[in-house]
């Protein structure tokens, strides 16, 4: 997988020295609830890093520990080689963009952006210059004298961003930065944020529950579940090589075919299960799996191919009939009920405007996928 169109993105160049942010076995409980359960995580300078997970997975608590609004019960939070324990929020060189934006309603846009600079006791001229610079950055010069309630949702989001960036923080923390925007604006803003991060070189740490948002923006993603980090990697690593059913299902759509490990055939695992008694062949390194172990074969819908006639050639073949079809414009999703009872989803790109003899419901079809299109998941 090293051709030009490889989906695996290059890792950002890492500096040889220590990471900018380091969480060391950090834990935090709220009463009976363990919000963060022994998280260790390194974030490099200049990275666009995403904490991704369902609500209640501890991602916001982890971020708030970096901002200083929560202190860890155990473990250390280190920023630029310095342990942050005991440093109050107002002394930490990080700034946060709040989910609700938390703009000061009694202050104008200008005064909101200037707030942090004023706390530093800078000279008036310097503050004015920096505010003008930030207004230019987020293209809000015409709104400088307005109050937050006079702005649209998208404008408020940009004021919040400008205010958090005004003090040139070492790390910008963004808590669900696009959560309050509508879909169209969200997509535009994703690119703007990404572009802005690349230009400023500031380390961005984003918390989100939206996998599409995380994949579109982040250099690296940490997927969290019930207080733990379950996988860290680039978006393509996480999407193409998930380490667990949870990760596979949380990021995008996936078909899980349950089965047992029969053994190895060269470079491939053989997994037998109800869907394929003769065994499915899946590419994978020879580690961690025992014969007879219960596993799932995970295949993304776009990596399955639909046929009318049984194809000749090499790969995994399943048969069944079309249960239903959904036309989504750019894609169509076909649900196929296999002869063995399971249902799989196969997506096909609508590459042409019209199709000769389109697939119909109840039609008999064959589904194939290559051994390198699937992953064996043990947990």
């Amino acid at each position: 997988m090293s051709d030009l169109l490889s989906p695996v993105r290059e890792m950002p160049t890492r500096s040889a020295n220590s990471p900018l942010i380091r969480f060391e076995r950090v834990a935090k409980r709220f009463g009976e609830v363990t919000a963060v359960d022994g998280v260790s995580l390194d974030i490099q300078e200049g990275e666009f890093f995403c904490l991704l997970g369902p609500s209640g997975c501890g991602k916001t608590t982890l971020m708030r520990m970096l901002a200083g609004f929560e202190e860890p019960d155990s473990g250390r939070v280190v920023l630029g080689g310095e342990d942050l324990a005991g440093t109050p929020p107002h002394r930490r060189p990080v700034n946060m963009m709040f989910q609700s934006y938390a703009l000061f309603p009694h202050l104008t846009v200008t005064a909101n952006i200037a707030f942090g600079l004023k706390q530093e006791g800078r000279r008036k001229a310097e503050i004015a210059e920096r505010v003008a610079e930030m207004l230019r950055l987020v293209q809000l010069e015409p709104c400088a004298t307005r109050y937050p309630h006079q702005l649209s949702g998208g404008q408020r989001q940009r004021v919040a961003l400008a205010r958090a960036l005004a003090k040139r923080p070492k790390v910008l923390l963004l808590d669900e930065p696009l959560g309050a925007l509508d879909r169209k604006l969200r997509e535009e803003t994703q690119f703007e944020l990404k572009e802005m991060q690349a230009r400023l070189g500031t380390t961005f740490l984003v918390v989100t529950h939206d996998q599409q948002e995380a994949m579109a923006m982040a250099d690296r993603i940490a997927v969290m579940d019930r207080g733990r980090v379950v996988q860290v990697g680039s978006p393509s690593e996480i999407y193409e090589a998930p380490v667990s059913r949870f990760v596979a299902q949380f990021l995008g759509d996936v078909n899980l075919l349950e089965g047992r490990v029969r053994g190895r055939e060269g470079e491939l695992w053989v997994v037998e299960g109800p869907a394929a008694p003769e065994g499915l062949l899946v590419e994978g390194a020879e580690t961690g799996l025992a014969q007879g172990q219960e596993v799932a074969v995970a295949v993304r819908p776009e990596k399955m191919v639909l046929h009318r006639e049984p194809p000749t050639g090499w790969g995994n073949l399943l048969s069944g009939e079309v249960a239903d079809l959904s036309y989504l414009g750019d894609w169509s999703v076909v649900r196929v009920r296999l002869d063995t009872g399971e249902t799989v989803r196969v997506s096909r790109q609508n590459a042409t405007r019209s199709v000769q003899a389109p697939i119909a419901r109840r039609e008999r079809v064959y589904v194939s996928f290559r051994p390198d299109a699937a992953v064996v998941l043990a947990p």
Partner: protein
Amino acid sequence: MTQAGREGVRAGLATRLAGAAVPALPFLWLVVFFLVPFVIVVKISLSDPASAMPPYRPLFACCGWEQVRGFIEGLDFESFETLFGDDLYVRAAASSVRIAAVSTLLLLLVGFPMAYAMARAPVRWRPALVAVVIVPFWTSFLIRVYAWIGILKPEGLLNQSLAALGIADAPLMLLNTETAVYIGIVYAYLPFMVLPLYAVLEKLDPSLLEAAEDLGAPGWRAFWSVTVPLAVPGVVAGSLLCFIPIVGEFVIPDLLGGSETLMIGRTLWAEFFSNRDWPLASAVAIVLLAILVIPIVIYRDVEARRMEGGR
């Protein structure tokens, strides 16, 4: 026109009448219970005192040009002239405003921390805390003020406690002083200060304070630059809700205050019941109203701006 069409028109008319009745009702209420009595008071203030029942004249004359003219000629501004000529009334008015202003300031000093603590208490406690603030209303206002006599008098609860604890040798002479009046007023009006403040502080988004801290403001500065300015509508509402009735307060200075505590409400009462000079008493009432119109207008203005400015 068809039957159904005519019924439709009739239903539309009924809806429109009902729609007009909704704003008309409070308007009617104000006319009957405020405007009419006020006109009567104005009329009495322009009359002359008399040893009769009712103790003023002329009485309202009816039905006849001569009688109406005689009635109008009987009215004059003599009571107002007395009022502004005698410095007792001017001093009473000034003293009322001063006591009300000082009381409002004291109420703010006591009420703000209370309201702030309530607003920051755990959510499940808040209804109980609000109830605690309101509970005193279940007992008659008069009884509660009387209770303060029992507490403040020389051999009262306060002095007994102080003596028992060995803090004071001689009893504190609080009753019938202006201090007692302040204690009574702050006690009685506290809910009117706390509740509007609580309403504003409770709505305050806690992430605003976090944002201020995140941007480099230590806790106390975050409080001054975010909480306090955003509490201004509550401060104004609470202050006026206290200041306006305190200016005209009668019961508390009468029961707890001494003879030197001069308040316009007491003066009014004395003119009305002791001197039986109804025209002069009515004139005092009108001057009191005039004094209060200014803060009422400010209050209305602030409220209107808050409604507009609200998110």
